[in-house]
């Protein structure tokens, strides 16, 4: 592949990507907003592999990362994928909501091979199951670790045993 030519893209290609997604996904594109230089697209969890495959075909070939966000008040987890297009120099974030009591989302390991470790990390930290992932086992945490540390109800023990001494930010 030849080195990509520097272009003042970004803005235009994001709107292009948005309209392409709108055409290809139809009603499945629940929401699409442009914010701080990135397009945030929200899709149902079962459409996650399809959306990312579409984005990859649109030139978003660089798989940046995937992570989870816990929203206990709204009883949901967010699974966030971030992809980048080296040619258009545009960034797209794909989000899907999964219920907190049954967090399941299909894996995208067949679309982006690099999703492997990111999904394993998200699984062990949040307990979000990536259906179809062939090696869903602990990556960073030890095998004996119980619970899902990045969930909001998992307390940081150091903070419980010893209060933070700061004047402004105690607790």
């Amino acid at each position, binding site marked *: *592949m030849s*080195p*990509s030519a*520097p272009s003042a893209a970004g803005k235009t290609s994001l709107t292009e990507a948005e309209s392409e997604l709108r055409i290809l996904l139809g009603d499945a594109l629940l929401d699409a907003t442009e*914010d*701080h*230089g*990135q397009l*945030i697209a929200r899709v149902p969890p079962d459409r996650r592999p399809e959306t990312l495959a579409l984005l990859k075909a649109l030139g978003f*070939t*660089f*798989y*940046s*990362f995937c*992570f989870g*966000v*816990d929203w206990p008040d709204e009883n949901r987890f967010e699974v*966030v994928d*971030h992809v980048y297009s*080296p040619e258009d*120099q545009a*960034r797209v*974030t794909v989000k899907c909501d999964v219920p907190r009591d049954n967090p399941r989302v299909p894996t995208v390991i067949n679309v*982006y*091979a*690099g999703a*492997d*470790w990111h999904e394993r990390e998200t699984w062990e*930290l949040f307990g979000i199951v990536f259906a179809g992932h062939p090696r869903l086992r*602990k*990556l*960073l*945490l*030890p095998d004996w670790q119980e619970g899902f*540390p*990045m969930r909001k109800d998992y307390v*940081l023990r150091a*903070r419980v045993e010893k209060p*933070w001494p*700061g004047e*402004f*930010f105690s607790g």
Partner: protein
Amino acid sequence: MATDLETKGYITAITERDMATGDMVLNIGPQHPSTHGVLRVVARLDGEQVISAEPVLGYMHRAFEKLAEQRSPMQNTALFNRLDWVSGFCNEVPYCIACEKLAGIEVPKRAQVQRVILFELTRLASHAMFCGIYGLELGALTPPMYGYRDREYALDLLEMCTGQRMHTNWARIGGVKEDFPEGFYERIPPILEYYRTRIEQWLEFLIDNDIFVKRTRGIGVLPVDVALDYGVSGPNLRASGIAVDARKEEEYLGYMDYEFEVPVGNRGDCFDRYVQRVREMWESCNIIEQALDDLPPGAINTGVGRTFKVPAGEIYIRADGPRGENGYYLISTGAKEPYRLKIRTGSFSNVSVLPYLLKDTYLPDIVAILGSLDFVVGDIDR
């Protein structure tokens, strides 16, 4: 006493067992000099050939993402230079930019330029160390002496400015901690000049060495599409032949104003990855020189107090660090701590491509490939 026949049979049995090339599992690390920390690679070997290899992570997992949720935005910068201790300053800056962009803080030009200078000095230090260490990885004992010596010149400057060689903790939300100390500005150009001569020597030093070339040319070839798929970034990705550089693509620190080239490799093997870093050191010198000319007078901090709160919103900021794309996805609800902070580090994705790279290579190549990715375990495990 065994008869001749029995002895013979016994010896045959031993030889057969020893010569058989069945699968053998070899553990490399966690305590191994080539792993820059505590990474473990479990390699399945057939004779000398690697059938499969899998990195085992987590020996250094410090849960920075969880800790960041319990700390105020200001306290967090002290955490992030511990991510990748070889280039601490490069990890603080993108986080500060993320907070600033969300809060709409305009950073003074002088602070921006000072950040660029320190950022690139850190890159020089990091790459100089890589050049030395990579020689060691391939069995040359002299290069690390030179590598560590060269690195100290940049680290001396960082120490003079920040008081710390590695964990600088110098970037603040809204600028930098203090202005350059007296005499600092004048000390940079001679050191850049020194680096330029050294860069030429680095190129001759190992590239003209037959053993080095034979051990790295064509070893660990990483095609562009695989690299992109795995999210490999930074010098490792550019060595594969695609010019992806956040400094040219994102508007941060005013990198758009500087003239510099993005070197690109063409084969994506270990040799290219080495040359890539040497060439990037040259460009770093160019950037620092321009930044020195560019340094305007004025404030270096906007004086954001320590009760600073990040307004609600979300943002992803990425920067091109020595180890690749270093980014922070910050989700804030307007509370005193960040609601969620995803740390995207270069090393994590770079190392995730190891099973692909190590497959069907030979045992001595493992260390050559590991070293060429230039990872830091603190950066992988976070």
